[in-house]
């Protein structure tokens, strides 16, 4: 726990109040580690004007550093600016859900502010306070991209406070892919050009080709692909990324995980099975222990230069291109590979696509919210607004381990990233990959329904069984589908459909 206690006596509180009242004179806030305060609804100056001394705010967030460190940092700043006491507790991801849910269900007012995975909105929505109009009208909110406004919205109301934008995309080593010698050798060996993989079949092929050889010449073996494959980590995300292009047909509406009408699980449909087979196949190009990699291991592996390709969130990308990285500017971004054949569940056939079908996965992402039980809601929203103010957002984006990724239009600005020392290709490919995902009409979102953890852990378990060879891909996913049907029955079809409709609306671009 990080406890920030700032004692501001009555005199200094008064002084602050006076300072706030006096006509604006741009104050210098650089002592807080930002370059300069940026104007906005919740700028340093605006928050400085508030006095919350004698009040305290309890915040639950993820473990340090991902999201946890910026939470602690901004909590510290907020406390200093307003005189409030801000208590922050950091919880490992695996237990964050229950740590929030137990107090919710037992009506214990434990935390005012919550940072958590945005997909839990399906479970938490009943306990969250809608974002007040004042903040909806704030400068920061106006610029949030449509995808992430959608992610924060439930039944037409914004109940999460956007502070992160997450999606999966491909990361690859330009020093290999753009190397003419390597290209020539690849062509000679395989008979095809070395290009950034367009389909997952290509991805596996390239990964396998480069696996187990020392292609960067540092004396240690290198490997093909680093993926999050540990069952209870974020493996479900990796699997969905791989399966989505085969299962998400751009012309088929009405649900990706379920058929919205019948609420029948689609998880064992041929598209998902194809994705799983390719995932199982990819294991041969993993580094040692790679099929037990959590996100941290994946970041270490790709970000540390051990592997050729990887796909997950921005953290590894930002870390790989950080100032002290050995592979700085040797990494570029690209859309997730797609599929040449897509399962059409309306016709029950595989449709062939000349240009591979892409299905960008807007996965997971951190979000924040205020508990409806909180007695400090005004302060809580001010804190969230401050957390994501223009200056803080810009600052946080630059630090890979913070896990804060672009979620506003202004963040998708090549010059901003070049300013961090990124070279053209690194910055351009990053910004264009992200922007194109925003524009895509075939996006996949998380299953944001009540009991999402049950669905995801059931799926991850099935995938893990297939990965370890205990079952075939089809058997494993049939098992998952059966469990999903049971979970659906327990939770109630109608309740699920109502929630799932929110997701389908986003996917079908009706939101």
């Amino acid at each position, binding site marked *: *726990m*990080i*406890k*920030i206690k700032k004692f501001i006596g009555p005199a200094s509180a008064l002084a602050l109040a006076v300072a706030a009242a006096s006509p604006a004179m741009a104050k210098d806030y650089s002592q807080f580690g930002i370059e300069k305060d940026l104007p906005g609804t919740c700028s340093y100056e605006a928050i400085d004007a508030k006095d919350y001394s004698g009040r305290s705010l*309890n*915040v*639950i967030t*993820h*473990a*340090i*550093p*991902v999201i*946890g*460190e*910026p*939470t*602690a*940092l901004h*909590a*510290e700043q907020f406390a200093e600016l307003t005189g409030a006491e801000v*208590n*922050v*507790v*950091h*919880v*490992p*991801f695996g*237990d964050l859900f*229950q*740590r929030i849910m*137990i*107090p919710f269900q*037992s009506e*214990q007012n*434990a*935390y005012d502010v919550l940072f958590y995975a945005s997909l839990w909105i399906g479970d938490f929505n009943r306990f969250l306070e809608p974002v007040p109009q004042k903040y909806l009208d704030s400068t920061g909110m106006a610029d949030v991209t449509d995808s992430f406004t959608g992610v924060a919205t439930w039944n037409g109301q914004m109940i999460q406070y956007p502070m992160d934008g997450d999606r999966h995309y491909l990361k690859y080593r330009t020093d290999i892919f753009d190397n003419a010698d390597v290209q020539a050798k690849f062509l000679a060996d395989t008979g095809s050009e070395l290009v950034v993989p367009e389909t997952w079949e290509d991805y596996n092929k390239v990964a396998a080709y480069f696996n187990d050889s020392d292609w960067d010449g540092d004396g*240690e073996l290198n490997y093909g692909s680093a993926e999050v494959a540990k069952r209870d*980590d*974020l493996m479900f995300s990796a699997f969905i990324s791989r399966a989505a292009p085969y299962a998400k047909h751009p012309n088929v509406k009405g649900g990706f995980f379920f058929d919205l009408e019948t609420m029948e699980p689609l998880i064992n449909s041929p598209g998902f099975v194809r994705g799983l087979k390719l995932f199982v196949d990819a294991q041969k190009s993993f580094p040692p222990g790679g099929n037990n990699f*959590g*996100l*941290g291991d994946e*970041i*270490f*592996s790709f*970000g*540390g*230069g*051990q592997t050729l390709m990887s796909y997950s969130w921005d*953290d590894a990308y930002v870390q790989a291109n950080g100032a*002290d990285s*050995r592979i700085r500017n040797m990494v570029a971004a690209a859309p997730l590979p797609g599929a040449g054949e897509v399962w059409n569940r309306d016709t029950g056939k595989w449709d062939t696509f000349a240009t591979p079908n892409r299905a960008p996965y807007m996965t997971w992402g951190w979000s924040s919210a205020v508990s409806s039980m909180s007695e400090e809601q005004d302060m809580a929203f001010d804190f969230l607004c401050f957390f994501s103010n223009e200056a803080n957002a810009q600052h946080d984006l630059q630090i890979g*381990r913070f*896990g804060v990724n672009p979620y506003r239009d202004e963040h998708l600005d090549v010059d901003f990233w070049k300013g961090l020392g990124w070279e053209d290709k690194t910055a351009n490919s990053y910004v264009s990959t992200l922007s194109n995902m925003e524009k895509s009409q075939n996006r996949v979102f998380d299953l944001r329904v009540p009991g999402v953890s049950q669905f995801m852990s059931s799926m991850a378990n099935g995938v893990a069984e297939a990965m370890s060879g205990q079952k075939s891909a089809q058997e494993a996913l049939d098992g998952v589908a059966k469990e999903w049907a049971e979970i659906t029955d327990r939770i109630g079809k109608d309740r699920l459909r109502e929630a799932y409709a929110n997701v389908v609306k986003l996917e079908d671009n009706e939101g």
Partner: protein
Amino acid sequence: MNKVYHTLKTIFLLGWSIFVVFPFLWALTTSFKDANAITSGATYIPWVDFEPSSQGWTSLFTTGSQGINIIGPFIDSAVVTLIASLVSLILGTLAAYGLSRFEYRLGFVKNSDITFFFISQRIMPPIVLAIPFFLMLKELGALDTIFGLVLVYIALLLPIAVWVMTDFFSGIPKELDEMAMTDGCSPIGAFFRVILPNSVPGLVVAGMFCLIFGWNDFFFAFTLTFTETQLLPVSIVSLNSSVTPWWSLSAFALISVAPLACVAVIVERYMSRGTMSGAIR
């Protein structure tokens, strides 16, 4: 033959010592690494293999976003563990004495059933009790407090104290208490004047187990607190993010072992004196 035996014994002891020390040594060297030193593969000797960094250690004493300050949790942990161990030891010792000296009967329930009831509490996996304890402490207003944790830890530690002390007392001849009583002590007086002063070895062992299990509990400390009370194992997992800082975790592991390593020294002293005879059986 004897020589072969001695060589084998030495190899065995040496091998085991290395096995025991290995993770600590690894933690020690890791605690001085940074991300670059770790991602470049296994390295062992600072300055030679990698450039040392003190980040792992400083982060444990830094307040704010750069680290977790473990001093507060360290104190909380010590307070909770000590109080809960002390209470468990007192109650457990009394109960164990009663169970070893008197006959209790309640319907079909006899002494052995009561002892089993105590010990059976250890069979329950903590997860079973997480939610009920949460609700109970909520009703008591004891969530996120030292008091609440002490209460729960007593339930965890009391069975251990009863187990160790029952065995210990069964090794002390009953005649000793009777003699005290013929010499003019009440049953309670006999316990305090005669039995207790002779129970130090048992109390040391029972106390040690209480401290170990109290100090090392993670699950309840984790589930039953929010922000105010924070114990050591919980504060370390706040570093267990999706990117694991190997260096801080290593430094932390070494620090958290220190207090109980002192306990090991004390326990060893009693053990080699052979005075634990009845203490553990």
